[in-house]
């Protein structure tokens, strides 16, 4: 069960309409290493992971990733909500407007729809946790690219927060991996 909390995890300060940046940010909504992929990846892997530490971590990080989806979609919404059709066209977003006006849609920065092909699940806890650690690093790299694509202090600030979370998640998954390895060793011994 999930409960909704009517607030963002981190305050997002968006000053002005910036359509180019909104388009780049889409990749962290519905792109391969985006927040939606992260949430689904972790919440889906919980069922077959053997240790309680990893069950808790996949549940908690998966839940936090859902809050990150909301931060990213809020940024995209606020950056685009005041745009005119002419501005959208000028920012190469005319094709996005033609399909769905200003509605949000989980796609990458090129408009390619989100797909479950972006996630992996193998039941082998060593395999899954390595997948998760790699995913966190890929998300970190993507945030670093995005930070270089803007000079807006409000956007940079929110992206830096999200980048930092990926670093922490990587660290915790690494600890969960070590615990799983110890658990498997102990099973072999006795």
């Amino acid at each position: 069960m999930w409960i909704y909390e009517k607030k963002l995890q981190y305050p997002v300060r968006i000053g002005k309409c910036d359509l180019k940046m909104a388009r780049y940010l889409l990749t962290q909504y519905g792109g391969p290493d985006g927040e939606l992929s992260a949430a689904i990846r972790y919440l889906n892997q919980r069922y077959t992971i053997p240790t309680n530490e990893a069950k808790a971590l996949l549940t908690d990080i998966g839940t936090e990733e859902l809050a990150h989806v909301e931060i990213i979609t809020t940024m995209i919404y606020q950056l685009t909500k005041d745009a005119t059709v002419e501005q959208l066209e000028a920012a190469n977003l005319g094709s996005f407007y033609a399909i769905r006006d200003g509605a949000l849609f989980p796609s990458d920065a090129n408009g390619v729809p989100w797909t479950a092909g972006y996630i992996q699940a193998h039941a082998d806890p060593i395999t899954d946790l390595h997948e998760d650690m790699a995913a966190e690093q890929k998300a970190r790299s993507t945030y670093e690219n995005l930070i270089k694509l803007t000079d807006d202090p409000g956007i940079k600030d929110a992206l830096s927060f999200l980048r930092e979370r990926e670093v922490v998640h990587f660290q915790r998954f690494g600890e969960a991996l070590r615990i799983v390895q110890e658990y498997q060793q102990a099973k072999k011994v006795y």
Partner: protein
Amino acid sequence: MNERAELLLQIQEAEFAAVELQLYLDTHMYDQKALMEFNHYSNLIATLKHEYEMKYGPLLNFGFSPSQYPWRWLESPWPWEEQY
């Protein structure tokens, strides 16, 4: 920053500390100091949340927050509309 946003920021800060400690405790279940800190933030969140909800309406759905009359869950701004 208005008074509501100020109080919300305090909740965001306390909840962030709790999220961070929760993830840490998931892989360090015997760390008593971290557990004490976690319980400290848990209490702080409850106090701040109570103050916020009395003034500005429910933060959580499905019975985890009470509401005054009329049903205050509907009140704007929603999180994606928040202007800082």
